[in-house]
């Protein structure tokens, strides 16, 4: 990626001339704002940034950014973006996708992008509902959810997007919340800096079809006790009094209070994004499945592995070095030939 220190952008430089048409109050506005605020700091010239999306309210994102972009077809954004990145490793390629788009119809492309470690930055706008099609349950909707297509409650179990990404081998996994702009900016910046598939799940409120899905994680009264902010190298402490922490009891995580005398800060698990062994990251992705535990946000995993796009380019460079640049003559004569006089 080329870095460019000369041009100084502002958030405004990344806003296109198109009117933004999400419902007033939609969480997508915040995501757009945080991306526009962060992009001036990622060190990439504007013309080298491409945003690819699928279909959904969230996928309209592409039209609102003054970068190169393609609003593709439902679920296929990672595949379109993957082809682009492999062709053009010099570009910074981003995917904007909804939970239905990325995890239902596009699930296959998503897991294989993670597995291949294609250097894409994937932002999941997780509102746990199908917004654009007016409110059916999605693959992240909780079981029993009542929607237009599940009047008696959905019978499906939801995906946990982070553990799915982890299981598929993603090298960068993070989570943030639409109502926490500073944190989201930090996650976007870190995703941009990572080389390899970066996956950021953003909890996004759809105030029309699934309002309040994340209220407990963002409202003043509850958020400190409900959210665990992960920080690399720091103990996992949370709570309004900052006195709750996570310990590992055998293979089970446990919430303890460090003010009550039984545990001290030294007993609390220290977060490491870069652990080669994904065990702890996996455990953290599952933490919020238990209502008594907090929901972690932050970077869960951040490890380096060669990327698919650079390996393909490396092979080309290497074989070209060994065999020389191919010519028409070589192409036509690469097998037995004979001459008719």
């Amino acid at each position: 990626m080329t870095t460019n220190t000369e041009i100084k952008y502002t958030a405004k430089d990344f806003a296109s001339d198109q009117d933004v048409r999400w419902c007033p109050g939609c969480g997508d506005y915040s995501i757009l704002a945080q991306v526009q605020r962060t992009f001036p700091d990622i060190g990439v010239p504007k013309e080298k940034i491409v945003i690819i999306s699928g279909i959904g309210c969230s996928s309209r994102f592409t039209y609102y950014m003054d970068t190169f972009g393609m609003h593709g077809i439902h679920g296929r954004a990672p595949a379109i973006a993957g082809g682009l990145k492999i062709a053009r490793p010099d570009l910074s390629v981003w995917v904007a996708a909804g939970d239905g788009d990325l995890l239902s119809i596009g699930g296959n492309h998503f897991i294989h992008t993670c597995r291949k470690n294609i250097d894409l930055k994937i932002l999941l706008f997780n509102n746990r509902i199908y917004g654009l099609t007016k409110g059916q349950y999605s693959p992240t909707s909780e079981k029993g959810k009542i929607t237009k297509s599940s009047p008696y409650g959905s019978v499906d179990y939801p995906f946990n997007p982070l553990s799915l990404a982890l299981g598929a081998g993603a090298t960068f996994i993070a989570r943030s919340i639409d109502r926490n702009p500073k944190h989201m900016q930090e996650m976007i910046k870190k995703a941009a800096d990572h080389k390899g598939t970066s996956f950021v799940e953003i909890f996004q409120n759809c105030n029309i079809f699934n309002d309040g899905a994340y209220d407990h994680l963002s409202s003043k009264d509850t958020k400190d006790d409900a959210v665990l902010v992960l920080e690399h190298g720091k103990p996992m402490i949370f709570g309004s009094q900052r006195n709750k922490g996570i310990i590992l009891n055998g293979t089970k995580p446990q919430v303890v209070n460090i003010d009550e005398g039984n545990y001290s800060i030294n007993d609390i698990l220290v977060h490491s994004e870069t652990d080669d062994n994904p065990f702890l990251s996996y455990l953290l992705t599952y933490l919020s499945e238990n209502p008594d535990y907090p929901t972690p946000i932050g970077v869960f995993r951040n490890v380096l592995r060669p990327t698919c796009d650079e390996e393909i380019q490396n092979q080309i460079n290497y074989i070209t070095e060994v065999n020389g640049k191919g010519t028409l003559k070589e192409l036509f004569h690469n097998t037995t030939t004979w001459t008719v006089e």
Partner: protein
Amino acid sequence: MKKEIKKLDEVTIRFAGDSGDGMQLTGSQFSDTTALFGNDLITLPDYPAEIRAPAGTLYGVSGFQLRFSSQDTNTPGDHPDVLVAMNPAALKKNQKDLLPGATIIVNQDAFDLRNIRSAGYNVNPLEDNSLDGFKLFKIPISSLTANALADSSLTVKEVARCKNFFALGLMYWMFNRPLEPTLKWINKKFKKVPALAEANTKVLNAGYYYGENTEIFETRYTVSPANLPKGTYRNISGNEALALGCVTASLKSGVPLFLGSYPITPASEILHQLSTYKNFGVKTFQAEDEIAGITSAIGASFGGYLALTTTSGPGMALKTEALGLAVMTELPLVIINVQRGGPSTGLPTKTEQSDLLQAFYGRNGEAPIPVIAASTPGNCFEMAFEAFRISTKYMTPVILLSDGYIANGAEPWLIPDESSIPELSVKFRTEKEGFAPYMRDENLARPWVVPGTPGLEHRIGGLEKANITGNVSHDPDNHHMMCELRAKKVKNIENDIPETEVFGEEKGDILVLGWGGTYGAIRDAVIRAQKEGLSVSQVHLHHINPFPKNLGNILKNFKKIIVPELNLGQLSKILRIEFLIPVESFCKVKGLPFTAVEIYSKISSMSGGKK
């Protein structure tokens, strides 16, 4: 003993055996040697869908047919003159294609009770006079192979595996071919395993000298070299030619090639070939499915690559939605469909032409796409190049139809003079002044602007575009106009493609109109009918959407039009709609190519035997 040498104009041989018997290799070695010898030839492999079906069964039979000639050759032959059958199943499956008097060479050792039963015979066909009308040679190929390798260190299994080279050696003797090309091949192939190199060499020689020294064979045959145009030749299969054509388009345009593909028979060979061309800058991506195959190619096209996706049958069905995206985003993209028997998984290893209507119409919305089709293995090269020419010049996806028959079939190919291949001029717009994503040039093509071009940041996508600006638009009049514009852009290509040529008289009783891989069989049939004085001509289409401009007028000049197709009449339907003329379809959907005789008989019956 002096043996008689008879001169023949042409010969058709079919090698048949168990899928583990190495018949494809035997056949291709014979073809390579024969090509080097200077004959014109065409090959037709016919292999089962199962990789290793149970030994001895009918459905495990693998065959390889070739026809070589001292004349121009258009088909791999209707009826083999020689059948080499390595076991009873191979005999049973192929005997029906032989005419009385044909030569049959069998591996007698394989005709044991078990194999005879597996093939569905009640009694040994070598002993019940059922083969009386043929020249039957019963040769204990397995034991002769074992004898030749009596003092070798190979295992019994390895020895048994050499027997195809005995048959090959014998055929080389019978048709007066040199052993050197295959000996050279053996030494290269088994360089690291000298024991195998030595064994195969011995067995090949043993087969050859068996013909020479035993009294079983009295006659050898020779087919003189064909009078081919001067130049350097190589053998080429349709799939190889497609790969070569794509890489050539890349070299001639200076734009690198990207292939996004998911393996499927009979198209995988293109993926295999292209993944070896790394030093030509070709990027191949084995995607997670066909949808990712085409959408990754769309992404690469957006990034300024010559983008290609290759597939067949059900894979083509999966690409449908993304084809629409390519139409809407007006990005260049080549889709190669190597057609096979359908519907669904259908007949994976068999040939068919039943995806024509799908190529024309198989999308939601008004989604016009140019369609072209290759007619012979060698022609696949030109059509691949043509597909990229059209797609980059008109900023459009192009569907190139091939089929299993020409994909696997091979023929000698006159290597083109490099300077005779035109440059492919591809423009990427970089000027900011006056740019709009959906402005159009004289060909109605929009500009190709790749990410990385400063100041030209823009968005494209699958939602309807406002004319010129490319902004999302739901305006009714705009939509109507854009549908017409896209259709007109494709239709206009008719001004930029060669007029189609009539083989034979420009006016007459019967026109045989074909497309794709049926070319050779039609050509042979028409030549025969013309020789007999029938008023018959041939037109073979390479551009199908749009049609060549002169097609309509040509059609008016004939009393009857026959359209032979390996489907239930798909081109016929389109012709009737387009030209409002009655055409007679001549259909075959058996997973097999037409034979020239079938088409000749149709012509002959239509002309009422009238000369």
